[in-house]
C-alpha cells in the first residue's frame, strides 16, 4: 500500500512521442518514413534504405567510415540523428556514379588500388568528394599558409592528408589514397 501511495504522489510521466515522420532525398529519390528519434542517418541508410556502403566503424565520429554527403557537405552520419534531417538531400557512395560510369574519385581509387580491406573506402571516397568541393570553394585548412590568396586552394599531399584526417584506414592504405586524390585534382 505504501508503494501505491507513493506512486500516487508522483506526477504522471508526460507523454512524449518517440517517433517522427521525415522526408529524405537519398541518392535522388524522395522517401517519407517514420523514424525512431534514436536512429542515426547511418542506421537509417543501412537498415531502412538497404544502402550498406556507409559503414558503422567506431560509431563515435572518430573513424569517418560513415561519411556521407548531406546537402553537399561531408558529415559523419553516425552522429546525425535522422529526425533532424527532414528535407535533407543525402548522397551515399552508391549515389556517386553517373549510370555505369564511376565518379572520378571512385575511378581513381580503383586505378590506384587505394584500399586493402575496403571497409573505410566508401567513407574515404565521400569524404574526398566533399573535401575537393571545400577546397574549390576556398576553404583554408590547418596547413594552408595564413597569407594565401583567397579563392580555390591548391591541394598538395600535405593539404590532402590534413583535410582527410577524419578518415582512418586500419590497413594503412594512406599513400595510395593520397595518390588517388592527386590524380583527380590533375
Amino acid at each position, binding site marked *: 500500500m505504501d508503494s501505491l501511495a507513493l506512486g500516487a504522489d508522483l506526477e504522471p510521466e508526460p507523454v512524449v*512521442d518517440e517517433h517522427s515522420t521525415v522526408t529524405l532525398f537519398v541518392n535522388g529519390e524522395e522517401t517519407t518514413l517514420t523514424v525512431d528519434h*534514436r536512429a542515426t542517418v547511418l542506421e537509417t541508410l543501412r537498415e531502412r534504405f538497404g544502402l550498406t556502403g556507409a559503414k558503422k566503424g567506431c560509431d563515435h*565520429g572518430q573513424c569517418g567510415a560513415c561519411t556521407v554527403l548531406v546537402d553537399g557537405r*561531408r558529415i*559523419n552520419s553516425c552522429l546525425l*540523428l535522422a529526425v533532424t534531417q527532414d528535407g535533407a538531400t543525402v548522397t551515399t557512395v552508391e549515389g556517386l556514379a553517373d549510370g555505369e560510369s564511376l565518379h572520378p574519385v571512385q575511378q581513381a581509387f580503383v586505378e590506384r588500388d587505394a584500399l586493402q580491406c575496403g571497409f573505410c573506402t566508401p567513407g574515404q571516397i565521400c569524404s574526398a568528394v566533399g573535401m575537393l568541393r*571545400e577546397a574549390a570553394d576556398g576553404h583554408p585548412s590547418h596547413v594552408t599558409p*595564413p597569407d594565401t590568396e583567397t579563392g580555390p586552394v591548391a591541394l598538395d599531399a600535405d593539404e590532402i592528408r590534413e583535410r582527410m*584526417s577524419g578518415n582512418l584506414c586500419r590497413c594503412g592504405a594512406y599513400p595510395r589514397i593520397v595518390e588517388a586524390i592527386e590524380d583527380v585534382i590533375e
Partner: protein
Amino acid sequence: MKPFGYARPASTDEAVRLCAAGPGARFLGGGTNLVDLMKLGVETPRILIDVSGLPLDRVTRTADGGLSIGATVRNSDLASHPDVTEDYPALSQALLAGASGQLRNAATTGGNLLQRTRCRYFQDVSKPCNKRLPGSGCPALEGTHRDLAILGHSPECVATNPSDMAVALAALDATVLLVGPEGERAVPLTEFHRLPGENPDQDTVIRPGELITEVVLPPPVPGAASRYRKARDRASFAFALVSVAATLRVAAGRVEHATLAFGGVAHRPWRARRAEAELRDAPATPAAFQHALIAELAEARPLRDNAFKVDLARRLALDVLGELTERQQARTG
C-alpha cells in the same frame, strides 16, 4: 540510447519556452558531442530541442566594427569566413586545428562552447566521476591524467576544457550572448566557463534553460597580429595537449598590447592575465617573454604524469610571441 522526444522550434523564444516546459530537455546543435554522449549513456535527455535550424546562422559586422557570430554558424563556415580569416586569424586557425573536416561541417558555435571534457572517466559510466555523478570521486587524480589539467584544478576534478575555438575567443575578448526564461544577458567568454572547485558538474555559468544566441567579438586591435598554435600527440584530428592563442602589438621594440590564453591546461580556457601584466610595456624580447611566462606558470600544480605540460606551455607561448614579434617588425620595418 534511452528513448526521447524531439522538437524543432521556429524561434529562440519558442526554444526557451519548450526547454522550460519540462525537466530533462536539452538543446541540440550539431550533435557532434551531445549525440555521442547519449550513445555513451552520459547524457539521457527526455526531449531534444533542436536549435540547429534557428535563424542564428549569420556572421555580421557590428556597428562598432566588431563581429557577431550566430550560435548555429557551423565551425567550418566560421573558419573560412573572410571577416574571420582577415581580422581574427587566430580564431580561424583555432577552428581549423580542431576535430576533422566532417565534424567541423556539423559542429556549431554555441555547441562548441558547451562541449564536455574528453576525460575518459567522465565518458565511461562504469567509473566514478564527480563531474558526471557529484560525490562519486575522481579516479583521474591517481589514474590516467597525462592530458588533464595543470592549472586551476581542484581535488574534485582535474578535467580540461577540450575546445580550441574557445581559447582563441578568450584571447580575443569575446562576449557570449544568452537568452533564457529571465531574459537576455551577456557574459565575457573568460567568465563563461568556470573552474571546477567543489561542483565540477557545472562546466559553465549558463543557467537552466538558457540558450546561447551569439558570440560577439570587439573590433580587431589596430596593428596587432594574432596566432593560435596547438601541440598534440599526432599531426591532425587530436585534442590539444597544450594550445596557445595570442594577440600582440609591438612598437619601437616594446609591447604595446598583448593578450594570451592557454588551452588544454585547465577546466576553462586559461587567460594568462599575470603574463599579460608582465608583458605590458616590456621590451619585446625572448628574455622578457620568458619572464612573463614563468610568472604565469608559477602557479601550475601538475599531476604525476603531466608536468611536461608546464614546459610545453611555456615554450609554445614563447614561440608564438616570438613569431608575432617578428611579423610585427617585418611589417613596420
